[in-house]
């Protein structure tokens, strides 16, 4: 038994339509005989067979289009049996092929807006090598592109100028990238302040505690309950921090506001925190702070009470996801269990990253801070 296949007649022939059989089952054929007529894209071609034998079955019917290599017929050699004669199948009624719907060509996609400045590949490499934050670099290349020279210039800067530049870039980025939500609450600070005055009365001046310290501790403890305000937004997701390192906003004499970190606040007692706070403010104001102390805080605390503002609307320091602000302490009439008293109150505001937390978390946080500040001796 052997097969006669639709031959390939050319490099670009893919299929052919059988037009006519020149032989019948049972007919003896010889090498070189034309056995079929096939229609191709170029025209009608006689197909010859390259073997001797007897036609057994014709497998493809006139009118059928088949790919190159399809078995057109089978043959039997000498001494073989013919297959049982079968009624030639009537060619199937083929539905005319559907005209393919031409898919509409989609309009070209809107070009994505470029995020951030242009940075040359060489500048990127240099910045990585010098540990320069590209956010802090202003480009002077073509179209404001950041060049190697720009990176090197920033790297060469030390002290307040570099810091200011870094913070300015960070604030711009914050407003551009972080969807802020704001919550505020008024905290009755009277218990804390009274407790503090009594503590300080028994201490020498140099060891007296400022009220910011219990505020900071309260914030750190509250974060234990609402951890999605404590950590970093990295690329496209939130990385929670186990410890709470509170960045403390400190104004500089020469202008500008920086927020270096107090570390592991949740686990330190108030006295320790006071010492560290004191040290931090001094070093910041004298310029003995390193850039890395700015990148460690997991949340920032800002208090503008001394400047006399009642309420703050702070801006989150990226890559942090929240910032807590306190206004000045004001004596206000306050309702307590139905009767009016004069109390010292302070407005606490939370700005948080809506990609990570929502109003519920923020509310829980502020309420917890509030509650903690009603029991200062437990801080």
């Amino acid at each position: 038994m052997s097969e006669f296949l639709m031959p390939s007649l050319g490099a670009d022939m893919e299929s052919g339509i059988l037009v006519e059989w020149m032989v019948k089952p049972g007919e003896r054929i010889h090498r070189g005989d034309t056995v079929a007529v096939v229609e191709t894209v170029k025209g009608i071609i006689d197909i010859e067979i390259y073997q001797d034998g007897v036609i057994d079955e014709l497998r493809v019917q006139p009118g059928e289009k088949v790919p190159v290599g399809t078995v057109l017929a089978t043959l039997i050699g000498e001494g073989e049996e013919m297959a049982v004669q079968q009624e030639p199948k009537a060619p199937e009624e083929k539905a005319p092929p559907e005209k393919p719907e031409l898919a509409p060509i989609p309009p070209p996609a809107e070009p994505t807006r470029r995020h951030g400045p242009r940075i040359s590949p060489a500048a990127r490499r240099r910045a990585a090598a010098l540990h320069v934050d590209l956010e802090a670099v202003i480009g002077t290349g073509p179209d404001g592109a950041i060049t190697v020279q720009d990176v090197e210039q920033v790297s060469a800067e030390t002290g307040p100028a570099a810091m200011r530049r870094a913070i300015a870039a960070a604030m711009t980025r914050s407003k551009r990238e972080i969807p802020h939500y704001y919550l505020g609450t008024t905290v009755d600070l009277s218990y804390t302040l009274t407790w503090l005055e009594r503590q300080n009365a028994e201490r020498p001046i140099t060891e007296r505690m400022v009220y910011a310290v219990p505020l900071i501790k309260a914030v750190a403890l509250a974060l234990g309950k609402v951890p999605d305000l404590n950590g970093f937004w990295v690329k496209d997701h939130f990385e929670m921090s186990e410890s709470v390192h509170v960045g403390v906003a400190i104004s500089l004499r020469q202008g500008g506001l920086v927020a270096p970190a107090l570390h592991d606040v949740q686990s330190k007692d108030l006295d320790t925190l006071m010492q560290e706070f004191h040290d931090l403010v001094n070093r910041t104001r004298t310029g003995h702070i390193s850039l890395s102390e700015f990148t460690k805080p997991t949340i920032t605390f800002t208090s503008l009470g001394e400047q006399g503002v009642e309420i703050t609307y702070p801006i989150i320091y990226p890559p942090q996801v929240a910032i807590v602000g306190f206004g000045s302490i004001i004596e206000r009439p306050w309702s307590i269990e139905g009767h009016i008293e004069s109390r010292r109150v302070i407005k606490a505001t939370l700005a948080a990253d809506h990609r990570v937390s929502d109003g519920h978390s923020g509310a829980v946080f502020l309420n917890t801070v509030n509650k903690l500040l009603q029991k200062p001796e437990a801080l």
Partner: protein
Amino acid sequence: MNENEVDSNKPALTREHALELLQGMIRIRRFEEKCAELYSAMKIRGFLHLYIGEEAIAVGVMQALQPEDAIGSTYREHGHALARGISMNAIMAELYGKQEGCSHGRGGSMHIFDAATRFYGGSAIVAGGLPVAIGLALADKMQRLKRVNACFFGEGAVAEGEFHESLNLAALWKLPVLFLCENNRYAMGTALERSESVTDINIKAQSYGIRAEVVDGMNVVAVETAARRAAEAVRRGEGPCLLELRTYRFRAHSMFDPELYRNKAEVQTWKERGPIVTFMEQLKEQGLANDGDIDQIEAAVEKEIAEAVAFAEAGSWEPVEELTRNVYTERAQP
């Protein structure tokens, strides 16, 4: 018969030579038929241009050429290559694309090259080989070598500028070129009378001052006679010669050609005047060959072809890592 046509006398043939000529033609015929089969079975790919019907020309011309002569050919070159003496195994392996092929498998059917027999390749560009042939002739002339540079081309090449430039330059510089125009009347699908204002090619050659003859390309003895005469004139340094060899191809231009441009009756007429059938008849008439001889030839040819196919089948594919070899001459590493 016009004054330019060669009178196909019956030459004095020895039996040995007659059988040599007959075997040469049958060998080509069967080889080409096998190629058609292999192509349909997708063993040979690309383009395949068969020489069936034209065998007398290759066989007759090669009788007139010496081993030191050079040959340039066309894409319809299997007959030339076989008659020149390139091993059938190497040719078949080349058609398969195997690295045992004469061109290392890199050329295929249209680009058979063989340094040993000074076979400078088929050209896929019609008339593209003529300038190269006159260049080989120029080298011979400048080196004072008495060799013939044979250049095969079809009548379609006559329309190309390169034909005219080459003939002019060959005549102007009296170069030892033997121009061999295989006029099979159809350039792919276009008949000669539809593309040339003057269809007598030999006249065009004469207009360049080149001696030219018309030869009955179906008659192997006539071809040999004319080729010897022309080759010797070229070898003697008398300048280029052109032979217009009138022939016919029995099969389509290539495998994928429904031959819409000619009718079957015409093909049949030429088949009846084919080079092999007429020569066989002649030899039998003259008592130079009998059926036994022919059977022997067929058997020998069949064996040689079967071996060539087996050789090609068993051949190996060049490793892909070698892809960029032989683009430039390899340099010795410093």
